[in-house]
């Protein structure tokens, strides 16, 4: 169940980016997960919910997982899909291919919200408003 470790790493990455951008809340995270990573999307969702449970920055946020199929470059057939869960060319069966996609485990982007106050502060300078 390394999905929990992965969820924690996602939170760490996103929290750092959110802090840099002055965000007060994370609404959604887009993650790309390749077929060859052996990361289970359902387990990852479960782990994400558990990891964000009492974290105000992530309250109500969504993890959107884009599942990336393997794509290969075959010396005989050129670019194309692979046989399921392999790097073998779907057209000719040869495993002697170059993998173009399917090994991703990347945070793509994140949708954040800034407090009205923080947004106003940064727009007008740090003027205290009640």
């Amino acid at each position, binding site marked *: 169940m390394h999905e929990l470790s992965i969820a924690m*790493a996602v939170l760490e990455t996103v929290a750092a980016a959110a802090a840099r951008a002055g965000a007060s809340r994370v609404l959604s995270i887009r993650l790309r997960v390749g077929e060859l990573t052996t990361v289970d999307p359902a387990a990852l969702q479960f782990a994400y919910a558990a990891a964000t449970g009492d974290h105000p920055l992530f309250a109500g946020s969504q993890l959107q997982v884009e599942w990336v199929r393997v794509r290969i470059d075959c010396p005989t057939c050129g670019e194309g899909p692979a*046989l399921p869960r392999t*790097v073998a060319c779907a057209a000719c069966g040869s495993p002697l291919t170059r993998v173009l996609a399917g090994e991703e485990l990347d945070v793509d982007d994140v949708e954040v919200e800034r407090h009205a106050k923080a947004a106003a502060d940064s727009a007008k300078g740090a003027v205290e408003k009640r």
Partner: protein
Amino acid sequence: MPKRLPIQQKVLSKNDELAAALRRRWQEQGVFCLNVVSSPGSGKTTLLQETLQRLRGRLQVGVLVGDLQTENDARRLAAAGFPVRQIITGGVCHLDATMVATHVDAVAGPDLELLVIENVGNLVCPASYDLGEDLKVVLLSTVEGDDKPAKYPGMFRRSDALVITKTDLLGLSDFDPARAIQHARQVRPDLVVFAVSARTSEGIDAWVQWLTDQVTAKTRSARR
């Protein structure tokens, strides 16, 4: 006002950076690092016991061994006389680069040539975590399914060598080594394959010789 921030970062970039730092350290010091992975019970500790016995007087070895609980494996591995450190993960199903960096100085003397890391028995999670190794070797025993490389492509894809263990039991199960190798090469075409039995010693010397050649090639080039 919602706003989209581009991130474009690997999820495990922190682990990868630490692994890269370890890899630079081993390069500078002329140390070869081996990461041994498999399901629980495939024979990692037994193969390493046999390997370490044969490396006595040939190479300076240090050993890290990961388990969820107990120091049993460290005790078994210490019999060959090399320094061994048990990493008890307390439930975490893999070793990561931080754990290696934290514990490695206990076994890495100045004359270290080979660092062996016996990972937690698990064919899924350890695949995602780079430990800074030069070589990842995956074990598959003849009492497991020969389609495991197809079921766990991540691990076999990232392994450089496959050691089929418990060959003395061939014929007692439906395991077909040729089929296992074929499945494995569907995800890793250049996989180097050995077949061994720790009980009969079949194939062990060939594996140890190959490993020694890999190690000395690196240590020699580092000393030049």
